[in-house]
């Protein structure tokens, strides 16, 4: 099976004075293209840290991380930014929309940072808003939307550059179960379209939906299934 991303002996160590925190401790995981992963584990086990490394907003302190055969330690800050913009879609627990911008503008933010930005950006953003069921809200501010709606905006935003990998850190953590399952349905749908999905969660039920499971404990791999 073709790999889209691979962790090889990855460590992420925080040095806080005399204390050394091993948030990730020599982790090796191969992520296959088109797989749906649930990353689980107790609070503080290193899930967010792992996702940050996978999303290239953080760098490992040891080991190497490959995205599509490319070693990220060979990339500089600008290259990592380009990689994030082009190949990775981020979805956060707290939505992280920009409050001053409208729904449509929020969806279009990643386009700002693409080289040779596409002329069909607006049309694509509108199509995505429609797809996540917010066609009638595109001029609203995030503060005027419910949590579930905000997360839909975030999903549309993550999809605007048509990334291969979707990273979601407790994307349903702030939502009620009804809304959460709607969001999860969108993820399943995206996965069936061929996108690789890495979903951090600590809910067993969500883990069951996923095709593959990675369990962390104290920064180490506890289980890969």
């Amino acid at each position, binding site marked *: 099976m073709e790999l889209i991303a691979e962790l090889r002996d990855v460590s992420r160590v925080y040095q806080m004075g005399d204390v050394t925190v091993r948030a990730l401790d020599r982790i090796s995981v191969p992520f296959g293209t088109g797989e749906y992963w649930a990353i689980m584990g107790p609070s503080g086990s290193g899930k967010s840290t792992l996702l*940050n490394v996978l*999303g290239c*907003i*953080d760098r490992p302190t040891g080991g190497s991380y490959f995205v599509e055969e490319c070693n990220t330690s060979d990339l500089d*800050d*600008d290259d990592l*930014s*380009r990689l*994030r*913009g*082009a190949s990775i879609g*981020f979805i*956060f627990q707290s939505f*992280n*929309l*920009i409050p*001053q911008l409208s729904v449509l503008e929020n969806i279009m*933010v*990643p386009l*700002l*940072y*693409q080289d*040779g*930005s596409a002329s069909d950006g607006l049309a694509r953003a509108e199509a995505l808003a429609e797809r996540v069921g917010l066609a009638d809200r595109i001029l609203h501010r995030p503060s005027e939307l419910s949590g579930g709606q905000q997360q839909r905006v975030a999903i549309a*935003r993550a999809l605007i*550059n048509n990334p291969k990998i979707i990273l979601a850190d407790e994307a349903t953590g702030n939502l009620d179960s009804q809304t959460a399952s709607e969001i999860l349905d969108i993820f399943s749908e995206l996965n069936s379209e061929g996108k690789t999905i890495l979903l951090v969660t600590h809910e067993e039920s969500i883990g069951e939906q996923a095709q593959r499971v990675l369990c962390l404990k104290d920064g180490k791999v506890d289980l890969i299934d």
Partner: protein
Amino acid sequence: MMHSAFTRSIRLGVKSLLLHKLRSLLTTLGILFGVSSVIAMLAIGEGASEEAQEQIRRLGSQNVILRSVKPLEDKVSGPSYSANAYGLTWQDFERASETFPWVENSIPVKNIVQEVRFEDKVINPRILATTWEYQNVTGRIVHRGRFISQADDDLVSNVCVIGYEVSRLLFPGLESIGQKIKIGPEYFKVVGVILPRVPLSDDLPEVDTSVTSEILIPLTTGRRWFGDMTIKIRSGSREMEQVELNEIVLSARSPSHVSYIAAASREMLARNHKQNDYEIVVPLELLARAEETKRIFNIVLGCIACISLLVGGIGIMNVMLATVTERTREIGIRRALGARRYHIMLQFLVETVVLSVGGGILGILLGVSIPAFVEYFADMRTIVTFSAPILAFGISVSIGLVFGLYPAWQAANLDPVEALRHE
């Protein structure tokens, strides 16, 4: 493509500034006042200097002017029965015109103090008795008719040349050439009108007289009818003064000879006058001094401008630093969505430049209107040069760039993970 990215980032900058309208406005105040004071001061300084230079140029930059000055009361010597005699004499005139080298023209001038009447109108203009050469050295412009001629002087004719303002006052709506006016007891025919001129600063008319300009008559005529005596009625008592010549204008062959003639005049007058009853005006020296004054003014102005713009720039930087902190999370989000450091940097830099340019534009508007007010209310001449607003605009753009650099750099170098965790 480039263009749209550029306008987009400016729109973005303007938009986020409009979110905090009051804060943005207050922030720009420093730049606003800095820029407007620069423009206003430049305009006022330029106007004042231009006016001073024009006054001096009117005196004739190749001239050396000797003037009679009434000495202080207690120093007046001479027998008490006669009138106060002081000032320049014909002897001075002859010495200067015959012995000084490099003198092209030497022109004697007498002031005549007489009322001027036409029909029922009475005015008290400045009356000068002088020769036809006076026009050449002082550059008075003949509007209509002619100037005093050599023949007038030779024939002791009762003719006069009047200032435009005099003509306007005495003959409103009438042809002034050929009219007969009465100067003191004598009738004079008007042969020419010279263009209006503001009286020189050191012989400004008294406010309550209706003098608006001057009348010129031939020197010989002036001497014949009015002599050297003037009688002034001052606070009830009569005061008699005897002045042979009020002014001697010496014009040099070339500007390089001016200082030589000035030195010779100083020496000659010092030798021949016991009392300090004269002054020597050298327009070229005044001009040099005026230019020096202007230079100093410009330096002072430059310093004030720099300080106020510095203060404005620091104000902007302060606010931008606060903005960066306030928007740390937004920066993290943008970074996670693919923004490079350069994008973040640009975003904040554009915002700062929009702020400072906004302040600069408001400052230009204010700075251009202040001189107009000054001109209107203080009756001062001001000149807004074309370069001043452009300079001000350039300065405000640079202020934005310079003082925005550090906050933008700070924003760009935030760690994305840290920034996302902010709050």
